[in-house]
């Protein structure tokens, strides 16, 4: 079966099916998806985040995570309220289960669970649609799995925003600089007209630091290498039931949610 498909791909790419796209590229997703998770990124490193929402209780704890990111990444949080819903920039934010997992809701979830908040951020998908559609490679996937954004190349076409099924991306509809609360001189600010999103704190990883949100989370957000069987993220995933957002879309998110159960039953 597998061999047949490979043969087909080879043939297809030789005949140049599909506007000169390499057919292997087009069908790659299909092949990998149908042969299960084993065919996902086999790189030495694939960064991932496990969010254990059981460990997040107070509003303050939730806020601390978001603020940590906002602060060091110069997120313009002061955009006037009337424009907020339109022009908001966010890399990480909290939302309810129903909004985070709209396709996995049932009427009988415990009320407490329905109210429970989930920190949402870019999933650094293994098969990122945002990367697939970008006409300039301004958004690209690094070998370590981080989906990165080049703010100097981005033309602001917002195709990636249409393509990301998680609403992870924000566009600078206006100049963000006047709306930054405390500028962090060590991190670049952005110009108007470009798209941005969570970078898994690539700038901090370079220095051997943990992502800022994970650091501020008291262990609720754990960051690590998904392709290392000994990593902490793998250990947590091995011993707990976890969810990914919209797994049916084949994007293979690298952010996992451990939800627990009993504590909501009351």
């Amino acid at each position: 079966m597998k061999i047949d498909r490979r043969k087909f791909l080879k043939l297809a790419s030789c005949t140049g099916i599909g506007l000169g796209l390499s057919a292997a590229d087009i069908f790659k997703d299909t092949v990998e998806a149908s042969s299960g998770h084993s065919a996902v990124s086999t790189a030495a490193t694939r960064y991932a985040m496990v969010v254990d929402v059981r460990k997040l209780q107070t509003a303050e704890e939730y806020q601390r995570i978001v603020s940590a990111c906002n602060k060091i990444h110069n997120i313009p949080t002061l955009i006037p309220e009337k424009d907020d819903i339109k022009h908001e920039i966010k890399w990480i934010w909290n939302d309810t289960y129903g909004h985070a997992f709209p396709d996995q809701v049932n009427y009988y979830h415990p009320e407490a669970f329905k109210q429970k908040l989930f920190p949402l951020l870019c999933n650094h998908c293994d098969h990122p649609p945002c990367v697939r559609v970008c006409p300039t490679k301004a958004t690209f996937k690094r070998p370590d799995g981080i989906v990165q954004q080049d703010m100097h190349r981005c033309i602001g076409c917002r195709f990636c925003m249409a393509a990301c099924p998680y609403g992870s991306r924000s566009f600078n509809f206006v100049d963000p600089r006047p709306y930054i609360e405390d500028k962090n001189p060590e991190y670049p600010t952005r110009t108007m007209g470009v798209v941005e999103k969570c970078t898994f704190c690539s700038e901090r990883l370079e220095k051997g630091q943990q992502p800022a949100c994970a650091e501020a989370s008291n262990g609720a957000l754990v960051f690590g290498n998904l392709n290392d069987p000994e990593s902490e993220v793998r250990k947590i995933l091995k011993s707990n039931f976890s969810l990914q957002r919209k797994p049916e879309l084949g994007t293979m998110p690298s952010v996992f949610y451990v939800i627990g159960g009993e504590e909501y039953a009351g």
Partner: protein
Amino acid sequence: MLDKALKGGKKYWTLVIILAAMSGVGVLTYLQQLKYGLGITGMSRDVSWGFYISQFTFLVGVAASAVMLVIPYYLHHFKKFSKIVILGEFLAVAAVTMCMLFIFVDMGQPMRIMNVFLYPTPNSILFWDATVLSGYLLLNITIGWATLHAEKRGTAPASWVKPLIYLSIPWAVSIHTVTAFLYAGLPGRHFWLTAIMAARFLASAFSGGPALLIILALIVRKNTKFDPGKEPIQAVAKIVTYAMIANVFFILLEIFTAFYSNIPGHMHAFEYLFAGIEGHAKLVPLMWTSVVCAVISLFLLIPYKFRENETLLIIACITVFISLWIDKGFGLVIGGFVPNHFGTVTEYWPTAKESLITLGIWSIGFLVLTILYKVAISVREELGTAKSEY
């Protein structure tokens, strides 16, 4: 031949000045957008494409529809189209010009637009769209100009023109197919994720474009010596009729799939567009206008007795145009974004400035069209061949 555009009567110059003034307003408003950002539009984090991209989508259809004249004339030697085919080719030129301008004004960083070609990315449909659109523009300018030039000298077009004409046929289909692929390949956007998208695009293009062409041809006939002929107009009307039937049929197929399957994601956009969700219903009146126009147009188009009457035909063409403009130039793009990925509703409505820029681009397009039509008509008036014998 361009000198023909400089000599014209009062009517011509009034039209040119009005269009130029409206273009000017558009350009000035665009300068504001350049300074302040796309924040002057109604777009948002949730509805990240709006009027600009939807006009672009609609106009790609208008551009592609030239092929509905080129195929009968050049492939089937349908001589009756000999006068009208140039109107189609020049309409395509104007439409593609507008398409490119709409893409340009939609960019957050327009100065970097060449990045699309500096870092060619074959896996991005937008890259292909930019490529095929540029090609189509060149093809139609070249073909239109070369055939007109030959006609002026009373010779047959140069031998290299024919292959270009044949090439333009699949090329026209490709521009609209690729444009449909911008939408139809995105995971999680149920409204767009449909295999029938490209077919729907072509059907609506092949009715909306020729409908506009009939309107234009009749305007031209009324105001100049140029007459594309009665029979050719009726032939185009037939194309409009069948394409419109196909278009409505395709939409009904979508509605069946969404509602019979009862899958919420597939129904939501239709619910939002035609009924509103939780009181969010800004697009509902527009969408129903589109439906009513579609029904009226079919009622006037299908019985041939009605469409043979040119007054009724004009009404039919106007209703086709309005119906499709709303459906594609509004509902299709916005519907794909509402509700958003969290199941909540952020509505979109174009702002005044956004509408002025949009109007400005339409004016530039019609200015280009007016000038090109003027040249074509003057050439034929001088030759004494402005009247079709059909």
